[in-house]
């Protein structure tokens, strides 16, 4: 509730009084007026009335010099009897800045009727920052008008100082404590609202030996180490297993399965895609043979994954799809020249499930490669944008029981794995594993959350990864 009219009436009234009331005791409000009036009421002897008059005049003159109502200070000291709200005062005057406050609290209490002096004070002062240091204490007027009606209440209406501690900056120890509190709170949240039975995550990664293999694998390794669920990393290496990869895997601290793949990786992008697909199928067959249980995630070594991805995939029943952001990086300094129109019409570079308004799968978003037509890379290591083909495997997750020969509750829209890819046919994407692609579950808030990013960055064929 904001007020548009505030003590302006009070302010103006008393400020006018303050400004002009000095000269002659035209009854400034408050105790000194009362005292003066009491004295000058005329019922007393003339001597005492002139005394009070002279006293009043003296106070006025002093106030003129000091810039605030000195008389109030005097009368407060002499006549104050009621309990004051906090009255720790530092003996600072108008000119002292707030930086010198040594105690943590410095307050003075005043009421609207004394806003006069604040105004004139402020005029003589550096900006409101020094409000915290005012020391002029006010008299019974404050008590009369200010307290909340009951002398035991310590909450007083009026202008208070703004308490600022000497070093208003965060304390690192407290910051650490706060972070630990938040961690604990989040752990509790996970316990209450999160996944009840965490399933194992089976990560399938096709890889091959090249300059950037160590780079990509290290990144993926660190990502997987941070996953909160039990995990098995199934690495399929083209051209047979290499010692370097084996060493890296054994140092990772993860549970892994290192599978050699007999064929070498070709240098043409199109062929590379096909080989990778075959490698993934090979991994799926291994899962089936060993009857590994869990959620299958296809993590390409060059992709970037978020932690939410692994939380989200726990929700999958049989087969799910997530949105994949596509980063078609050119590798060259210049980006593809897109016309304004192209920029308007270009949708987000996201591949994934599309939902209708009732939250069911209605179709698929794919990457629009038109702006890049003619400029895509064909050979690995070429300085041109690498484009995804259709729907990437990385956007799909499977329940491993779907791959088993016989599993309870396996839906009939799932093809048997043996029937797929036997004849060397191209497996573009996991949808070919299904009879009916419409039963795929859209994950990540119906595909609205991008949970991983697809990126293909490779070095030229002749480069070597720096040692050490």
């Amino acid at each position: 509730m904001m007020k548009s009219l505030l003590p302006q009436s009070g302010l103006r009234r008393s400020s006018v009084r303050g400004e002009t009331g000095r000269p002659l005791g035209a009854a400034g409000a408050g105790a000194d007026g009362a005292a003066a009036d009491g004295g000058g009421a005329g019922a007393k002897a003339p001597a005492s009335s002139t005394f009070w008059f002279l006293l009043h005049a003296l106070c006025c003159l002093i106030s003129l010099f000091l810039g605030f109502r000195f008389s109030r200070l005097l009368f407060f000291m002499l006549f104050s009897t009621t309990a004051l709200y906090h009255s720790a005062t530092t003996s600072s005057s108008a000119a002292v800045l707030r930086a010198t406050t040594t105690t943590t609290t410095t307050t003075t209490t005043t009421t609207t009727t004394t806003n006069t002096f604040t105004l004139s004070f402020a005029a003589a002062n550096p900006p409101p920052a020094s409000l915290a240091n005012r020391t002029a204490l006010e008299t019974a007027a404050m008590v009369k008008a200010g307290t909340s009606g009951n002398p035991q209440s310590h909450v007083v209406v009026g202008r208070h100082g703004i308490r600022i501690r000497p070093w208003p900056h965060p304390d690192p120890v407290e910051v650490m404590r706060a972070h630990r509190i938040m961690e604990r709170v989040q752990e509790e949240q996970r316990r209450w609202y999160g996944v009840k039975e965490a399933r194992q995550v089976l990560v399938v990664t096709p890889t091959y030996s090249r300059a950037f293999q160590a780079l990509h694998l290290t990144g993926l390794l660190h990502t997987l180490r941070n996953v909160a669920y039990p995990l098995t990393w199934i690495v399929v290496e083209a051209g047979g297993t290499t010692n370097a990869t084996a060493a890296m895997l054994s140092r990772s601290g993860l549970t892994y399965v290192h599978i050699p793949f007999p064929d070498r990786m070709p240098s043409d992008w199109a062929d590379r895609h096909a080989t990778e697909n075959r490698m993934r199928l090979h991994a799926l067959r291994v899962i089936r043979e060993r009857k590994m249980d869990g959620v299958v995630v296809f993590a390409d070594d060059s992709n970037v994954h978020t932690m939410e991805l692994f939380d989200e995939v726990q929700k999958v029943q049989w087969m799910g799809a997530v949105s994949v952001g596509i980063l078609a990086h050119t590798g060259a300094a210049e980006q593809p020249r897109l016309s304004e129109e192209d920029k308007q019409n270009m949708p987000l570079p996201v591949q994934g499930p599309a939902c209708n308004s009732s939250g069911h799968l209605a179709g698929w978003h794919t990457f629009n490669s038109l702006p890049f037509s003619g400029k895509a890379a064909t050979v690995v290591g070429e300085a041109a944008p690498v484009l995804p083909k259709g729907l990437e495997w990385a956007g799909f997750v499977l329940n491993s029981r779907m791959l088993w020969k016989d599993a309870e509750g396996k839906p009939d829209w799932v093809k048997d794995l043996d029937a797929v890819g036997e004849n060397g046919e191209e497996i573009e994407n996991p949808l070919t594993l299904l009879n009916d692609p419409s039963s795929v579950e859209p994950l990540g808030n119906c595909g609205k959350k991008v949970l991983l990013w697809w990126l293909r960055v490779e070095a030229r064929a002749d480069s070597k990864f720096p040692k050490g």
Partner: protein
Amino acid sequence: MGMTAGWCPAAVVLALAALSCLLLSPVATAAEAAEVAGQAAHRNTERIAGSCILLLSQEHPPAGSAGDVLEDNPVGRLKVFVYDLPSKYNKRIVTKDPRCLNHMFAAEIFMHRFLLSSAVRTLNPKEADWFYTPVYTTCDLTPAGLPLPFKSPRMMRSAIQYLSSKWPFWNKTDGADHFFVVPHDFGACFHYQEEKAIERGILPMLRRATLVQTFGQKNHVCLKEGSITIPPYAPPQKMQAHLIPADTPRSIFVYFRGLFYDNGNDPEGGYYVRGARASLWENFKNNPLFDISTEHPATYYEDMQRAVFCLCPLGWAPWSPRLVEAVVFGCIPVIIADDIVLPFADAIPWEEIGVFVDEEDVPKLDTILTSIPIEDILRKQRLLANPSMKKAMLFPQPAQPRDAFHQILNGLARKLPHSKSVYLQPAEKHLNWTAGPVGDLKPW
């Protein structure tokens, strides 16, 4: 003013101030000692309640139990008669300005609508325990939407005059078995500015009635003993529409959105909120744990659900809708308002749910909050997760069991039966019909 004559009078002032310090210190310490003793009882830092609550159903958010009083059903425990006032006191005002249905004082309108169709309503005034007067005193809005209380006393007075002349029940008790909903800033003092409100005091006609108001501050003129404090109105559908999944991790430590300085009314600071909000800003604007600012983000409700602590400092009056929002969104309210009386304090264990910080401790707020033991924080969150607490803070339409309407009725039921002194003897009269400022006596 004479800055040229600067240092000399400064010296004089210094001397005098030192002198005053010496003189005052005995007075001050005595006063302080008395204060401290009196306040130790309600000095509300964290208190670990040994008995109370808990725990743990195995399922979804294990919520602690909050107190069975919230579960009471008022139906059958009291009867309320609703006066049929002419529509100029209620319906016509709302039709003139329908904004009244959405602002934080809308409880008075919705309470009327609830009572009209409630099971506690009786059409026979002779068997009624409580009498309700539907007069909407907080519906005279400025173009900006802020209510002006200037005509409210006259309106209330006119309504009471009407009903005392038409029905005999007011005169039987001088209003002691009547209740009124006065949700404005300072309740029945009918002013937004605290000094003016204190000066006016509670409207003389309402001195014997029970007031249902949002304002609550201990030892304050405008809080009558026996009043029922209610939460301000917050639109339940709007809050419902902004809920986010409960597993979104709480990653903001302290959250606050609102004014620190009211530049329109108090540009220097120090008057607004007794300088407490300004102190908050000055001390914590550089602190990354404190997400505080004056912006109006579109994701305000969502952000509150991602925060561990939500600050609820007082404003021009001690109460604020932030308290309701914090409770509904599960964010622990940090209440910075000295001597505040919180809604339904006899039913909701505010000490268990929230953190109370004195205004003078605001500079130490970060230390206070980070040193709360983690078990207490988790316990408070469990209690806040209890749906009955959230329900009790809201005024849904249509009314639902255990919501704020029912808590008000519970409060009224707890005050029954009326004591014998409520009924006036033949020649007894308590109310002075001509008391109050002259302006109030003009007809409305």
